[in-house]
């Protein structure tokens, strides 16, 4: 990031302002980025490159950050742009291309940019979760289409696609499932049958969903494939674990990219390769609770104990998302304001 000036503003504020090593690179990422302590130290030991992690809001915010600062970025590498946001970042030319070593071990399904401006790192799923025991006399959903049934829609809570990423992914899931011609009818049925829409994930899960804390009365919630894993691992001694409606899952792939305007392009590339390497990839399941994309990574048993395998996730081409998202969300809003 060029020569740095050390600004003395008081002891507490030194950390980020100071540092003259030319081999420091800055990783800009979202607030959910977590790796075990020491993972990045290993990279420093191996390469002599120090990584400064800076976090700034959720994925949407850091992508907006990268677009607003395009050409004069806050960091050298951005991690956390996903397939929902990918097109707008690519359109704004915020990344430079880089062919990462190790990409051969990654399935083609997740390589969404042919020009390799971004490198896939992990993959998770937004899925409908439910508690079969809380459904009363209603039979459990077998497909996305089942949710429009009055007794299920009335027990379903999901999020506003304009203020929530899982909400947006679920909207995309319905569009992928029912197509341009069918998704609005599906939502009309949800609406007429009493679905609840919240602004964010937390209110839906914790204030309405029966499995939340303190929880509400609704038996079905739009959440993540990883939610049962969290419930299992961090839900106390006898955890209650939600079921996943595998047919509803929309894949969310996270990428890393080198930010255009960096003067540490080579070191940035080495960091991306490190993130893609099997040792780091094997850490991902239990630190970020998503699946690694590198097939040589080892997935711990703890993660798979509560995880439901998703074999055929729903997907939309990022280019299609980029071209239509504003229209879709506007139509969705108008449908609910009718």
């Amino acid at each position, binding site marked *: 990031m060029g020569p740095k000036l050390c*600004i003395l503003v008081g002891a507490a504020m030194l950390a980020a302002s100071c540092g003259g090593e030319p081999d420091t690179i800055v990783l800009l990422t979202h607030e959910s980025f977590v790796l075990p302590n020491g993972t990045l130290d290993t990279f420093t030991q191996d390469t002599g490159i120090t990584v400064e992690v800076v976090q700034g809001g959720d994925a949407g915010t850091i992508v907006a950050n990268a677009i607003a*600062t395009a050409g004069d970025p806050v960091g050298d590498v951005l991690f956390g742009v996903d397939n929902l946001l990918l097109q707008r970042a690519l359109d704004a030319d915020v990344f430079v291309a880089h062919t990462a070593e190790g990409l051969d071990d990654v399935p083609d399904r997740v390589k969404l940019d042919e020009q390799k401006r971004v490198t896939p790192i992990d993959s998770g799923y937004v899925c409908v979760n439910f508690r079969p025991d809380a459904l009363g006399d209603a039979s459990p959903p077998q497909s996305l289409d089942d949710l429009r049934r009055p007794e299920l829609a009335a027990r379903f809570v999901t999020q506003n696609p304009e203020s929530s990423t899982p909400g947006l992914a679920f909207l995309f899931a319905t569009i992928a499932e029912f197509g341009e011609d069918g998704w609005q009818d599906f939502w009309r049925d949800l609406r007429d049958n009493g679905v609840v829409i919240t602004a964010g994930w937390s209110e839906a899960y914790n204030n309405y969903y029966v499995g939340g*804390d303190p929880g509400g009365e609704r038996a079905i919630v739009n959440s993540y494939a990883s939610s049962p894993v969290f419930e299992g691992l961090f839900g106390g001694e006898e955890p209650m674990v939600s079921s996943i409606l595998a047919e509803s899952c929309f894949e969310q792939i996270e990428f890393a990219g080198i930010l255009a305007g960096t003067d540490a392009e080579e070191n940035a590339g080495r960091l991306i390769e490190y993130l893609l390497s099997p040792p780091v990839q094997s850490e991902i399941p239990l630190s970020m609770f998503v699946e690694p994309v590198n097939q040589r990574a080892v997935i711990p048993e703890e993660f798979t104990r509560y995880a439901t395998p998703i074999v055929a996730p729903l997907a939309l081409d990022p280019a299609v998302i980029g071209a239509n998202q504003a229209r879709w969300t506007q139509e969705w809003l108008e449908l609910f304001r009718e």
Partner: protein
Amino acid sequence: MARTVQGVTDPPGESSAFGRLVGDRVSRGLGIAVLAFIAITVAYPALAMVRRFLKVAGERNAETLSFGSTVDIVGFTITQAALSTLLTLAAGLPLAHVLAEYSFRGRRVVEVATLVPFVLPTVVVAIAVQRALISVGMNFDGIDGSLPAILIAHVVFNVAVVVRVVGVYWRAMDRRPNEAAAVLGSTPLSVFWRVTLPRLRPALVAASAVVFLFTFTSFGVIVILGGLSRSTIETEIYRYAITRNDFSAAALLAVVQAVAVGGLAYLNQRLQGRVGASGGSPARRRWSQTMSWQQVLHAGTVIVITLGFLLSPFALLAWRSVRVDSGFGLDHYAALALRPAVLPISPARAVVHSVVFAAAAAIVATVIGVAASVSAQVSSRLARIVETAVLVPLGISAVTLGFGYLVGFTFLELRRSPVLVVVAHAVIGLPFVVAALLPAIRSLDNGVLDAGVVLGATPAHVLRRIALPLLRPAILAGAGFAAAVSLGEFGASGFLARGRSSFTAPQAVFGLLGQPGADFQGQAAALCIVLGLLVVLVVLLIDRGRSTLGRGWL
């Protein structure tokens, strides 16, 4: 002696004793310094954001705002802020009155307890209010949203402003005019309407302005409780900038917001007027040492109802924080020392970071706020501009400021520096300091200051030995506010890219609330309780300086 000097008088407000002591030159210098600070930390980044957003948008001007919808949004923004302000005043005045009129053990604790909701991130308050309203049977389908719910959350959050800003002023007010009115046959209610309220005007206007602008830019509460149909300028700026990346619309709304805020701040300044000294010497006040049973009943009822209302979200969290698998325990508190799987550091360390930021932000806000109040109390054009300008940061979108810092402070790599976090917190704390201090300066007893000068003290000595001790409660109230705002702030600083050394408690709360798992929910609740108790402790601690009897020298 060519000219007659009869008619030499000392017109109240024109040139107060305080103003003479400070001197025109110093007032002007301080005013210019404050304006420079605001220009650098607010105006420049806001302009940088608008410029950059319009440039990024370029020809990709996919969607433009319709005039009609913009008018609707501005209308709702102002309406909900005005209603929130009125309700907050109505909810806060009874307690401000009790705290001003009575002296009793624990009075300070009650006063400080109102600050507790203030340190919780607004999103947490909004979630808690939603939970409480669902539990009492209010129907949220999440689609229509609920204006009453928005107002309730805003009141819970802002009552502290009224209680502290008005309460401190009220307590220092000479009560003889009220007694005179009572003797003239006014009922207590009529005394309140005809004497007390008009005399409280400077503090009421100051508190109202802060509450109004705070709710004007409210974000989390509107998004969570407003449903799909309620949006404000603030939520729309976020939506266009972050959700849709329609930067030109976001920039346009940012300009609309800035213009509206400028106008409102100016209006406030006109409303406040030059209400001069409240006169009389506060020293004449006496509090009866023992309260009658009616007074105890009155104070008790007001305290229980107001605090019960304010602290109910907090009580839910307290209950949650001690619930563990095996029943009740402090396991969640103990767990705060360890790094949970979803956070980069332990919540305890995040709290330490928050405290450091709060201290730094409170110091900066207090220094600038004192300068602003001193320069704003004289009557001059510059003073009016300063008074208007300090309010503006409250009314500027977090998106505008946050992105303004990102695109404006590219030099010296300030963007990733914690200095920006401190600045972002301090500019939000600044209006609270001024709201607490300016009415106090205006109501200073000029006679006491004159007495000091006549006794041979230099102006600097009078300011230090008399004015400063008399203003100390107001300064500390402002500093406590600035610290509390900083502890819970998650606006502009939420958009800054910051390192792990700047990871703060609100971020930790969000991280914990962002995933299922009873352990995380319990720890999030425990963390909120720690933050709440922390603010009570910190504010009580800085308030200990209030009792300065006999320590006026140096």
